[in-house]
Structures are given as structure tokens and as C-alpha cells.
């Protein structure tokens, strides 16, 4: 990547080659016990503080006691859209780290390894080798007793030097993180960090790296966090003060944040005995007049399906967060998949229309939470937020939200209701009266039985028809109010890529590359999945082919879950699917391959007999 030559202050001036990068993908490979997440987190935070773009990616070991694990950071000054298909730098703590990940290092990439543990095959000339006795130097710096505990900080120091990072900011981050753990922990961390920074990496490598330039300051500070944090704080900003949940990976960290944070805001988050209780407790709070939240991952979402139907029927607002992971069943709990979409939409018995939205990146997690709360309140409907494992754990920097504008301080509406009070007027929005509100006349019993405008149970055929229509029509009204998504890239042409959720970055990058090849390609990313925004047909019909890119199975008929929905609605033969089920985020390359494969296989698009 070509650089601008904005001048700078190298750490040590002499004879070193300055290599300017637009961005760099650094993969740290070790065991989860080594604290590689911590280094990654610091780098990401630092990038955020220096207004750089950053994105991370991590794996979680499948044994409880930890084990092999990676943390990958991509940071830079261009738009960072994905955590990177291959690494520019690989830090290998152990021989097994080297062996499992050397293939992810690009040619001419730099292998940094702990020469106390790792013996690379130096005869393989594809890579640049940089061995550092990380273990030994750390023990030396921190003192033998601390064993290998500071290796991560040592590596952080090493990278700081190599990349010419702002070490005052890094030291401050270390301070913030370890201050509460006691003085000696902090001291050891800084000792290790300094030792890493003191190692003359630049002179050994004969070069140092420098990020192209800082982004133009637009006055907005960046904040850095992972998707689950963004979602949790988004809920708080949205005025959510009550919630209930049960732990499950990767949802748990949201409930942990809410359990710690909500009391500060006068709210409460309850850990329940199971997911059935959790959604019920959240619905109790919602019935009592609050905007409430519950959440889970796959198996827990399945358990919430009955109560969710009650919320639809009783028209009680609720936010349900679902952090998707590999399914079905217990499946692959620490891998990513987008395979809960159809369940989110259709998973309850009966015609039970509810809203489903999905964030496209960490920033989107924050804003989806805000939007979910608004929709839930305005339409008195449950809203499901579909995030996923990769978004949940991925760290990104984004402009600090304008809380003055966004922050909602919730208020209970206990105003008395007049004699004409109808919770479900046929000609207007739902108007619940929470307990505590005086009612002239009949007090309502909110019910999961079919009911009339007054909420009174009825098995009258006409009422069931009208009320079924009511529940459907309010979602259509919502649909009408949604903005039609913009096409990124070409506005008409060969191929439109359609995506949802965390695939946003890789799809966008794929579109860039395809356009660079002079293909006419656009990208539409849907945040609103149910209801879909109106007018998509006007976008779809401008392209000869519409490929829906998802991380789920092609299904019995060759279509992923969103593709199935879109075909069901529009019945365009041009809509087809690019899917995958390996439990890993999309690599840009995989999308490009999908596009090529489907484009070649053009005939079948318009055949009347697909899938024979």
C-alpha cells in the first residue's frame, strides 16, 4: 500500500528504513492464558485514541482451561472493513502457534517468534524472520518469581517500538488497566513493557513501520469497544433500565455489563433460573411500563419462543438480543454463524409478527440498540437484535456518539386513563396503561388469548381476523417509515451483493475489488430484516444478478436464509445465494470466489427448473 510521505519522528534516527503502511494485520498466536487478548485490546484502544481505524478478531479455545487461541488486530488509517484475510505480522508464542498459523501469514510477511520456544523453518524463504527470546527477557525484566506472566506486555512494548506507536498513550492504558490490581502488578506490567520497548527491534529488522497518516480530525473523538459493549451501552442510552437474562456464550458479557451498570442508573438486571424465566421477567417489567431487555444466544433464543409469542399477542414492547453462534443445538458455541434469522422471524407458533434488525459492525450495535428501543416503544412490539459471535468479541473504534442528542431518560406514564380507554384501538397505535395508572371503568387484563380492542378475550372469528391484521399492519407501517437503503458502489449493472449483519466489511471490500476489475457491482446491506424496508425491488431490478451473501447454509433449495426471504417476497429468479458454514467470518476472497462461481453459472438463473 502506497504511502503519503508526511514526515515524522522515528524512534532512533540512524540508517533505518521507514516503511509506511496504510494498515497492518497483526496476528498474535499463543494460548489464551498468555493474555494475548490484553495486548490486542490495548492496540485496538490505542488505535481508537489516535483516530485510526481498527478491527479485531479472536478465537476462543474450546477447552475450559484455555488453550490455543489467537487475537488479530488490523489497524490503520484507511477504512478498515474486515479483520484481514491474511496477516502481515504473525507473533508466535509457541511451536504449535507457529504451525497452526504460518499459513495465514502473507508472503513477505514478518514472523516474530519467541526464540525460547519456537523453531521456525528458516529455509522457507517466503517470510521475514524475527526471533526474540521473549520468555527469557520477560523473566529477566520482571524477576523470576513472576514466571512467564508478563510476556504479553513485553510483546506490546516490542510492537510499540516496531510500529512507532505512541508509547505515552500505551503506558497510560496500562496504568488504567492495572491500577486497580495493586501496585506490584502494575509495576511488573510496566517493567515488561519497557523491556519489550527497549529491545532493538528496529535495528534488528533494519526498518520500522509507520502508519500513513492520522485521519483528518473531524472533531469527533473515537471510542473503542467490542460489539457486546456497544450493544449494552446502546441499550442504556436508549433508556433501557430493566432486564433479565441467563448466561450463555457469547451473550453473557452483555448481561454482565448491564448487571453492573444498570444500578447506577437506578435500574435492575436480574439473573434468572433459565431463559424462560428471563424473558418472562423482562416482560413483567415491560408490562409494568418500562422498556426492558432480555437476551441470549441460539439455545436460549429457542427457549424464549413461547413467551415471545405472548409479547406479540399482548403487544408488549420488548428488546430481545440474540448473539448468534454456530448451530444447530449446542453446535459451535465459540464460532460465528448467521443461522438464526428465520427462527427470529418465524420461530414462534401461530402468525406472530415481530421486528428483527441486525447491526453491521460495532458502531451498528450501539445504534441498533437505540433503534430497537424506539421501535419497541412506538409500535408496542418485541424487537429482536441479531448480532453474532464475531461482532460480539470484535473490537472497533468509532466516533463517540452524541449522547446529548441520543440519551433517553425513561419516564413511567401513569397518567389516568379515561372511560374511552382502549389498549388496542383498531384505528390507532397500541396504548397500554401500566399498573399504577388509574382507569375510569374497566381495568385491563393483558392477555395471550385473542382479544378485542379493549383487550377482552374473544373467539369471535371477525375479531381474530381484524386483530391478526392489526398485528401485521403495524409492522407494514413500520416498513413504510424505514429509509430505503442506499446502494454502495455502482447504482446499476451486473451484480448487486446483498448482505446483513457482520458481513458488512468483507462484502464492501469485495465490492471495491470487483469494481477495481471494472465490474459494475453494488452493495446493499440490510439492517431491517423484518419488516424489510419497502422499495428494495427498485434496487434489485437495476442489476442483472442479485447475490445474497450470508454465513449460513444453502438450505434444501440452494438459498441462504435472507435469500429465501427475499425470493419469497419478490420472486425474482435473479436472487441467488452465496453462503458458507465453516463457522468463521467471511474472507473477502471467499466472496469474490462466490461471485465468480455464480456469474459463470449464469444459465441456471433463469431456468424454469432449478434444483431438479
Amino acid at each position, binding site marked *: 500500500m502506497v504511502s503519503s510521505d508526511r514526515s515524522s519522528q522515528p524512534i532512533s534516527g540512524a540508517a533505518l528504513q521507514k516503511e509506511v503502511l496504510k494498515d497492518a494485520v497483526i496476528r498474535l498466536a499463543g494460548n489464551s492464558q498468555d493474555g494475548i487478548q490484553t495486548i490486542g485490546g490495548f492496540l485496538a484502544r490505542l488505535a481508537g485514541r489516535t483516530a485510526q481505524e481498527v478491527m479485531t478478531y479472536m478465537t476462543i479455545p474450546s477447552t475450559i482451561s484455555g488453550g490455543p487461541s489467537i487475537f488479530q488486530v488490523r489497524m490503520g488509517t484507511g477504512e478498515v472493513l474486515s479483520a484481514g484475510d491474511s496477516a502481515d505480522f504473525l507473533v508466535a508464542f509457541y511451536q504449535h502457534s507457529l504451525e497452526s498459523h504460518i499459513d495465514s501469514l502473507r508472503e513477505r510477511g514478518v514472523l516474530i517468534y519467541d526464540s525460547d520456544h519456537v523453531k521456525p523453518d528458516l529455509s522457507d524463504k517466503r517470510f521475514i524472520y524475527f526471533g526474540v527470546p521473549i520468555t527469557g527477557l520477560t523473566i529477566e525484566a520482571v524477576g523470576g518469581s513472576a514466571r512467564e506472566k508478563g510476556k504479553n506486555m513485553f510483546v506490546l512494548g516490542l510492537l510499540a517500538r516496531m510500529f512507532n506507536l505512541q508509547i505515552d498513550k500505551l503506558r497510560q492504558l496500562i496504568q488504567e488497566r492495572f491500577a486497580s490490581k495493586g501496585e506490584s502488578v502494575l509495576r511488573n506490567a510496566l517493567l515488561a513493557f519497557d523491556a519489550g520497548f527497549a529491545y532493538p527491534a528496529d535495528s534488528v529488522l533494519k526498518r520500522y513501520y509507520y502508519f500513513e497518516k492520522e485521519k483528518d480530525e473531524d472533531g469527533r473523538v473515537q471510542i473503542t469497544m467490542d460489539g457486546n459493549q456497544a450493544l449494552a451501552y446502546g441499550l442504556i442510552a436508549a433508556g433501557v433500565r430493566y432486564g433479565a437474562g441467563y448466561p450463555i456464550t457469547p451473550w453473557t458479557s452483555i448481561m454482565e455489563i448491564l448487571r453492573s451498570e444498570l444500578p447506577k442508573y437506578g435500574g*435492575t438486571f436480574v439473573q434468572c433460573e433459565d431463559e424462560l424465566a428471563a424473558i418472562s421477567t423482562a416482560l413483567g417489567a415491560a408490562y409494568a411500563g418500562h422498556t426492558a431487555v432480555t437476551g441470549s444466544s441460539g439455545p436460549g433464543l429457542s427457549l424464549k419462543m413461547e413467551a415471545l409469542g405472548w409479547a406479540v399477542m399482548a403487544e408488549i414492547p420488548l428488546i430481545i438480543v440474540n448473539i448468534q453462534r454456530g448451530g444447530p443445538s449446542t453446535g459451535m458455541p465459540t464460532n460465528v454463524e448467521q443461522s438464526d434469522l428465520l427462527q427470529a422471524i418465524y420461530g414462534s407458533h401461530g402468525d406472530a409478527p415481530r421486528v428483527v434488525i441486525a447491526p453491521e459492525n460495532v458502531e451498528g450495535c450501539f445504534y441498533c440498540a437505540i433503534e430497537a428501543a424506539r421501535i419497541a416503544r412506538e409500535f408496542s412490539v418485541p424487537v429482536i437484535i441479531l448480532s453474532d459471535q464475531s461482532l460480539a468479541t470484535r473490537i472497533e473504534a468509532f466516533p463517540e456518539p452524541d449522547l446529548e442528542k441520543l440519551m433517553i431518560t425513561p419516564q413511567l406514564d401513569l397518567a389516568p386513563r379515561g372511560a374511552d380507554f382502549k389498549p388496542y384501538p383498531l384505528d390507532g397505535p397500541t396504548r397500554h396503561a401500566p*399498573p399504577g395508572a388509574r382507569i375510569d371503568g374497566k381495568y385491563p*387484563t393483558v392477555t395471550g388469548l385473542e382479544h378485542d380492542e379493549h383487550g377482552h378475550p374473544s373467539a369471535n372469528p371477525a375479531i381474530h381476523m381484524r386483530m391478526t391484521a392489526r398485528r401485521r399492519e403495524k409492522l407494514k407501517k413500520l416498513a413504510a417509515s424505514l429509509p430505503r437503503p442506499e446502494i454502495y458502489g455502482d447504482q446499476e449493472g451486473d451484480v448487486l451483493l446483498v448482505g446483513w449483519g457482520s458481513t458488512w466489511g468483507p462484502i464492501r471490500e469485495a465490492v471495491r475489488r470487483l469494481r477495481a476489475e471494472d465490474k459494475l457491482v453494488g452493495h446493499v446491506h440490510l439492517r431491517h430484516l423484518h419488516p424489510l424496508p419497502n422499495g428494495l425491488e427498485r434496487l434489485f431490478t437495476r442489476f442483472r444478478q442479485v447475490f445474497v451473501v450470508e454465513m449460513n447454509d444453502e438450505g434444501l433449495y440452494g438459498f441462504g436464509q435472507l435469500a429465501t426471504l427475499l425470493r419469497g417476497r419478490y420472486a425474482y429468479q435473479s436472487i441467488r445465494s452465496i453462503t458458507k458454514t465453516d463457522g468463521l467470518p467471511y474472507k473477502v476472497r471467499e466472496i469474490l470466489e462466490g461471485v465468480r462461481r455464480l456469474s459463470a453459472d449464469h444459465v441456471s438463473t433463469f431456468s424454469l427448473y432449478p434444483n431438479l
Partner: protein
Amino acid sequence: MSTATADTPPSGEKLTRKVLTGDHPTWCPGCGDFAVLAAFYRFLEQEQIPHEKIVTLAGIGCSSRFPYFVNTHGGHYIHGRSLPFAVGVSLSRDDLHVFVFGGDGDGFSIGGNHLDHTARKNVNLTYVIMDNFVYGLTKKQTSPTSPIGFKSKTDPTGAIDQPINPMKKLLASGATFVARSHAAQVKHMVEMYRRAYHHKGFSVVEILSECVEFYPGAFDAAVPRKQGQFIEIEEKKHDGTPEDEKRHDPSDEEAAFRLAHLEWPGVFGVFYETQRLTKNELEAQLNQRARERVKGKSDLEILRDTFAKMR
């Protein structure tokens, strides 16, 4: 019956049976649940709780139709989950008075676990189980309280599974107030309602309420006019008399367990009562400590400070 006192709702509205009457009950004529309802009216008339602050909730079952028949804020939730729903109401709205009604199937079968956890957490609400030893609404299947030998549609030759002992289950759950009553005894029910209501924390009352349709005569053994015996628990008066020795001390858990083991039809009244901080109070304390840490900042300021640390 006491007249309205300072407790009278500000609007001056007096809780009368008329004001409290909701829909006409859909129960079979003669169903025990009518009396449970009548006693509830009478209890509310006595207590004069502000009308709009009363919440009656239920799951699914004949008994769970209760909220429709009471003109207060109400909720008819799903089968077996009324308690966690009520937990959400109680914990988020400490100003309300939450009453939950349901059957033996709703409470002890599908909902049995929620009962245990709501009890141990001592969430502030009152739970009334209208126990008819059968599934009424679904028309006569074995319930977890059906006695061995009871012929139902799912046990046509007689039930074989050992039923639960409701009192034992409730006592073991950690409930801080456990009582038992009988639908043929309106005064007794009113008294139990009253004491459950005034108990701070999770209070639960099992009421034997006959299903005349599918289990007629189930509770005759405790109906005096049917040659049964309705034996009330005599509670300790702590008056130092020798009679008092034999009386029951409701704060004595072991004694309560012994009462629970008495032969059918057993005794009626308050088996157990103790004081323990409610979850409502404990959460409030948590909140207070958290609020102190943020020193009167507004919601906006708290979140802004948090974000500042994430820069």
C-alpha cells in the same frame, strides 16, 4: 369489616365488591374457585389498597382465569410462567401490590422451578395456588398433586406417581411465608390473604379448591358439613401457659415440616413465617451503593464518563 381509613385511595374511590367485580366467571357452577374469588374481594374491601396499585397475574388454567374476574390491573400470561413475570413487575415497580393466582399444574408441574427460585430470592409478592388435585382446563389429567389411585384421562386405571406434598415443597423452597387454606372456609381464606399481604417478601397460600367437574368431593375430608374436619393451626401466643407449649410456632421451620407430614387432610393456617431481606430491598441497596458511587450524576453524565474511559 373495617371501613376505609387513611389508606383510602386519594381519589376517594372506595373498593367495594361492585367496583372490584370484573367479568362474570366462566367457571363451572359450584367450582371452588368462586369462593377463592369471593374471599379475595372481601380481603380487598378490608384492606382498601389503592385500586390502581393492585395487580393480579396468572398463568393458564381454570384458576388462572382469576384476573379477568377482578377489576384491577391484570395479566393473563402463559402456562407456568406467571411467577417470573410477576418478579419483573415486583422488582421494577415497588409501589405495586402484586398477587399471582394459578393452579396446581401451573404452579407445581410446569412452573415448579420458578416457584423455588422466586421463593429463595424472596421477591415481594403474594402467590395463591388454587389446588384442585387435577388439571381442570384441559379436562381431567393427572396433576402433581393427584393422589395415587386417582382415575384421570391420563391414568385411566388410577394415578401411580407419588404426588408432591405441596406444603413440604413450599417450605423447602425458602418461601418466607407459607400458609394453607380451603375454599369452603371464606373467613379463613380472607385471614390468610390478609397475613400473606402484610408479610414482606414472598408469601404463598395453597388453597384446596374443589373441581366439581373432574374431582368432586376431593376435599370433603376437610369440610365439616360433609363429615370432615377442618383443623386450624393454633399459633403460639407466647403467653407462658402450658397450653402454649403445644401450639405451633410459625417461625419454627422444623415444626412446620412436621405439620406438613400430618396425615390427610392435615391442618390449615400459617405453617411458616420468617423475616429475611426481600430481593426488592437487596436490589435497592445495590442501587443505592451504586448511586452513591456516581454521586448524583445524571444518566447522561454517567454514560458520558464511561465513554470517556473508552477513548
